[in-house]
C-alpha cells in the first residue's frame, strides 16, 4: 500500500520553481494595470479641470453671485442652493433609507414576500434614468403638491432618486455584520433595539456611510432630475420655496447655453469634484470616529 503510493508519486516530474511559470504574476499584473488605468483617468480629469478652470478659482469666485448669466462673477448663490437641495435630499432619504434597511436586514425573515417586493422595486428604481425621476418630481411635487420650481421640490425628487441605492447599500452593510454578534446579544437577553443601537449599527457603520456617500455623490452629480424641479434661477435663494440652481445645472447651463461661459464651467466643475472628495473623506472620517467611540471604549 505504502510502496504503491510512493511509486505513484514518483511518476510525476518535480515541479519547476521558475517565476515565469507563476500564474499569480499574470493576475497581479492585470490587477495593477486596471488600478493604474482607473487612477489615471481620475487624475487626468482633475488635471484638466485645474488647467482649464484653476485660474478662475479665487475666494471671490466662491462667494460672489454670478453675473452676466454666469460668464462673470462667482458661484456663491449656486453653492448655497446646492447645499440646500442636498440638505433636503439627505434629511429625507438618509433616515428613511436606513430605517428601510434595518427593516429589511434585521426585522424580517429571509423569503418574506413583502420584503422581496420592496427589494425588487428598489433595485428597479435604482436603474430608472434620472430624467424619469425629474418628470415624476415635476408632476408630483411641483404641480400636484403645488411646490412649484423650488429647492424643496428638487431636494425631494433627489431623495426619491437616491433612496434605492442608499437603502440597498445600507442593507448590505447590516447584513455583513456577522450573525455571531446577534446570537451573542440574544443569548444575554439584550433587546433587539439595544442590539441594533449598541452593536449592529456601529459595526455596520462603514456600509451605512458608503450608502450615504453614494447617495450624496449621485445627488451632487444630478442635472436632469433638477432641471424640471428646482429650476435654474441663479439668484440667492431666500427660502426652500425659492427656485435654486445646483452646481451641476450651472455647469450644464454655462457649457451649453452661454457662449464664453466655458472657463467658469471648468472652475465650477473643479469645485464640484473638490466637494465630492471632501464629503467622501468627511463621511468616512465621521463613520470611523463613531464606530470607534461605540465599539472600543466604555
Amino acid at each position, binding site marked *: 500500500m505504502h510502496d504503491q503510493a510512493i511509486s505513484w508519486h514518483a511518476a510525476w516530474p518535480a515541479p519547476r520553481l521558475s517565476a515565469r511559470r507563476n500564474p499569480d504574476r499574470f493576475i497581479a499584473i492585470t490587477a495593477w494595470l486596471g488600478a493604474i488605468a482607473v487612477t489615471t483617468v481620475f487624475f487626468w480629469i482633475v488635471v484638466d479641470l485645474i488647467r482649464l478652470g484653476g485660474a478662475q478659482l479665487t475666494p471671490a469666485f466662491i462667494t460672489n453671485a454670478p453675473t452676466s448669466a454666469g460668464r462673470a462673477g462667482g458661484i456663491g448663490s449656486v453653492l448655497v442652493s446646492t447645499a440646500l437641495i442636498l440638505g433636503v435630499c439627505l434629511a429625507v432619504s438618509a433616515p428613511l433609507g436606513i430605517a428601510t434597511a434595518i427593516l429589511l436586514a434585521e426585522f424580517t425573515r429571509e423569503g418574506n414576500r413583502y420584503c422581496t417586493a420592496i427589494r425588487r422595486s428598489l433595485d428597479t428604481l435604482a436603474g430608472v434614468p434620472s430624467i424619469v425621476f425629474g418628470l415624476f418630481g415635476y408632476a408630483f411635487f411641483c404641480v400636484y403638491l403645488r411646490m412649484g420650481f423650488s429647492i424643496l421640490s428638487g431636494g425631494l425628487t433627489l431623495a426619491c432618486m437616491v433612496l434605492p441605492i442608499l437603502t440597498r447599500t445600507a442593507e448590505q452593510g447590516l447584513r455583513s455584520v456577522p450573525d455571531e454578534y446577534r*446570537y451573542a446579544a440574544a443569548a*444575554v*437577553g*439584550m433587546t433587539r433595539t439595544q442590539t441594533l443601537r449598541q452593536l449592529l449599527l456601529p459595526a455596520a457603520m462603514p456600509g451605512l456611510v458608503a450608502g450615504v456617500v453614494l447617495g450624496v455623490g449621485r445627488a451632487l452629480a444630478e442635472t436632469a432630475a433638477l432641471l424640471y424641479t428646482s429650476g435654474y434661477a441663479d439668484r440667492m435663494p431666500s427660502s426652500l420655496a425659492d427656485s435654486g440652481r445646483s452646481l451641476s445645472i450651472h455647469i450644464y447651463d454655462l457649457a451649453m447655453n452661454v457662449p464664453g461661459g466655458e472657463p467658469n464651467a471648468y472652475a465650477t466643475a473643479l469645485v464640484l469634484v473638490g466637494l465630492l472628495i471632501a464629503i467622501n473623506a468627511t463621511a468616512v472620517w465621521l463613520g470611523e470616529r463613531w464606530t470607534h467611540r461605540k465599539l472600543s471604549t466604555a
Partner: protein
Amino acid sequence: MTMTPDTLIPTKPVAVTVPPRPDHPPIIRAENLSVRYGDHRAFDQVTWTIARGRITALIGPSGCGKTSFLTCLNRLADLVPRCSVAGTLDIDGMDVLSAATDVIALRRRVGMIFQKPNPFPVSIRRNIALPLLDHRLCDRRTVDDHIERTLRAVGLWGEVKDRLNQSAFCLSGGQQQRLCLARALALKPDILLLDEPCSALDPISSGVVEDLIVSLRGRYTVVIVTHNLAQAKRIADDAAFFWLDGGAGRLIEHGPCRSVFENPAHPLTRAYIHGARG
C-alpha cells in the same frame, strides 16, 4: 463504529435513572420535545428532566440534535430561520415555549456559551457592561464593581485589569471564552448552556475553562454539549446520549454519568463510548 442496525433503536429512551433525589430536584422538564428546520428534523420526541445544580453532559455524534436541544432551552431557536419547536418545555415552572413567555427574562436566567468564543466587538469592560445596563441590573456607578467581581469569578481579572478599555479581540481564544462566560455569569443566571465550550481552544486554555465549569457545580445548573468523552466523564454528574436515527436525532439513554459510561444500558451507547475511545 459500524453498528447501526435499526432494530437496536428503542421507541423510548432507556433511563438508567435513579428517581430524582430530593437534593437534586429537576429544573428542566422536556416532554415530547421536537425541533425541525423546514423539512429536516433535528431531533424528535425527547422526554427528559435535568436536575438542578448539577452538570449534565450531552454526548453523541455530530448532527444528532444536541445543539438544537440547547437552543430550545433559551429560545435562541427563535432566531434561526424556518426553525420550529414542538412539545412542552418547562423550566422551573415557566412554560418556555409559550408565546406569552418573556424571552428576555428567560435568557437572563438561562445563559449560553458558544463553541466559538463570540465576545462583542467592543472593549472588555463594555462586553460585560452592555448586558448589565440593558437589563438595568445596576447603574453606571456600580457597574465597575460588577465587572470586577465577574472577571474575578472567571479568573480573568488579573490578566485584564490594566486593559479593560482595549478591544475584547485583543484577548486569546481561551481568554475570550472566559470573558463570554463572565458576560453570562454577570446576569446571575440559574442555568448555563455550554455548546462545546472548549473545542475551539488549545489544551491549556481548554483545561482552564474546564476547571471553571467544574467550579460552577452546585451554584448553577450546567448543561454542556461535548464531543470530548473524556471531558464529559471527568466533569459531568449526569449524561445523556443522543443518536441519529432515521434522519432525526433521538435521546437514546440518560442517567448518572458513571452508569452511562461504565454500565451503558443500550448497545448503541456502549458502541459509541467504546468506539470513540479506540
